[in-house]
């Protein structure tokens, strides 16, 4: 695996506390997997190729050549609605910071990929189910604006349950904020690639995710607007297997290609090299 910055290493150490078990059971094939092996295999089951959900930090490490310069790293949500349900919103945020090792549901920044400078944002489903509030919206918007300013392509790996309930309409409006910022990147004719990972639904899927020039999905990732349970309750019938999976997206024309996690970095580099007239490459560090 490529080297990561000190910052990432620090975060990674934090993460190592999160699940102490040595063995993990594959939910797809029920094989018992040794955690260290699983992580070395990019969280893909060696037996059945099941793609486990990947923390943002691991994803970044798997894609970026070397250093990753995070932007807006210290942004945290306020509590605009003074939200309480079973817990207060700040309590929930604190718990998720502890659990996930990240301080919000997206990590954004700049680095190089096969020597090509890129902007990269990775959502983290382990923080509030990857939901989008003002901070996620801000970081995604900054990524687009700053990528346009630097004249580099942007890549976003999504994983999200949608807009974050605890921030109400403000969260919903992040769909408009991120879209607005995306128009800056589009005006500069810079590529924007979205990598849909499991799961991507609601307000994230219905905004910047599906506005990408090229849409890549991870195998079997569930992607859609309405959640499976909501649909089943509404239509009062069980949905067919494979509904809203990456393969379903391809069949119905909504994604460009499905890429195995092991090929993802190489595939992104290949696409960028073709799309960028004279790919601004630095000396490859990978």
């Amino acid at each position: 695996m490529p080297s990561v910055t000190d910052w990432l290493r620090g975060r990674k150490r934090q993460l190592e506390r999160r699940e102490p078990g040595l063995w993990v059971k594959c939910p797809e094939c029920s094989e018992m997997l040794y955690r260290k092996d699983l992580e070395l295999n990019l969280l893909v089951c060696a037996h059945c190729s099941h793609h486990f959900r990947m923390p943002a930090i691991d994803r970044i490490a798997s894609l970026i050549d070397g250093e990753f310069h995070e932007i807006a790293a210290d942004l945290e949500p306020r509590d605009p609605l003074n939200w309480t349900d079973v817990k207060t919103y700040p309590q929930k945020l604190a718990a998720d910071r502890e659990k996930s090792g990240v301080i919000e549901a997206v990590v954004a920044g700049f680095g190089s990929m096969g020597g090509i400078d890129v902007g990269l944002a990775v959502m983290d489903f382990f923080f509030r189910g990857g939901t989008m509030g003002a901070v996620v919206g801000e970081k995604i918007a900054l990524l687009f604006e700053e990528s346009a300013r630097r004249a580099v392509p942007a890549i976003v790996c999504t994983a999200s349950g949608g807009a974050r309930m605890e921030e109400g309409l403000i969260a919903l409006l992040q769909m408009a904020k991120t879209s607005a910022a995306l128009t800056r990147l589009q005006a500069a004719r810079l590529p924007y690639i979205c990598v849909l990972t499991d799961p991507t639904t609601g307000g994230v899927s219905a905004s910047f995710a599906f506005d990408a020039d090229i849409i890549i999905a991870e195998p079997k990732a569930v992607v859609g607007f309405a959640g499976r349970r909501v649909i089943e309750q509404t239509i009062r019938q069980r949905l067919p297997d494979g509904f809203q999976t990456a393969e379903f997206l391809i069949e119905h024309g909504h994604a460009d290609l499905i890429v195995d996690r092991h090929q993802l970095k190489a595939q992104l580099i290949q696409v960028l090299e073709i799309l960028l007239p004279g790919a601004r490459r630095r000396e490859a560090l990978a």
Partner: protein
Amino acid sequence: MNVIVEREKGLLELEQRIGDLKSLSEQHPEASFVNEIHALEEKYASLQREIFGNLTAWQKVHMARHPMRPRATAFIAALDEFVELHGDRAFRDDAAVIGGIGRLGGRRVMVLAQQKGRDTKENVWRNFGMVHPEGYRKALRLMRMAEKFALPIVTYIDTSGADPGIGAEERGQSEAIARCILQLTNVRVPVVASVIGEGGSGGALAFGVGDRIIMLEHAIFSIASPEGCAAILWKDASKAEEAAARLKLTAGDLKALGIIDEIVAEPLGGAHRDVEYTVASLLREQGRALDVLSALPIERVVEERYAKYRHIGSWQRENERMVRGAT
């Protein structure tokens, strides 16, 4: 059951009695019912103030969903001119969206509206105002046409949200909503969006990005339905009333949060109690907004729209939290 319809029952009974008494007094001019009528009318007025004077969020949710609430067609019917334009040019004409060109108080406009039905038959046809992908794509086509011909866009929002069905997912409602939002964020004509009933989730936002966001007094605009929100957060849909209060989905709450620009007052008892008045009020407000926006260079309108959306939602730095000791 709609809680507003429930509460209206007493009022409607009184109305009936007043009406009966009035026709009785006409038939029998010799007998005087003046006092009785007056007393009933006072009772009616006070009951009306009691019921509608200070609606809770939950009551407003039900007002927004009231079966007699004026639909988009009521507002469209009040335009000087309207030519409905159909179809997404690819799959189907979605009756949950009414789009077309017309004039609002003399001003050329492109109208995009979400339309619920009035009865079961119309609701089936209109899919209860839940827009299908082809409805968003019709809207997108018309947004582009509006830009081409410099027609300001006026939208009417009234939907519980996107369609939770198989076909809508198969035909990519995520993409369809995303494209509408993207287009509205930088379409080079003024956009005035109005929430007239339910403004639910991404389905509403697809028509709800603009330079001026106007809400009718009892309309709601929400990240999710209170029922859906309660089911997710409390795993208990019966907490919907509490969710409604917490979600800050009323026009007043959203104006206070700086998210919407104008509130148009409804008659006491709700828009359906005086449709003509409500329609005229909203159209007047839309016209005013269009006049202000049309007087500006379009570059400035689009820039200000960018700035507005770019700054929605605030945050703090990690160390601020640390210092304050909040967790």
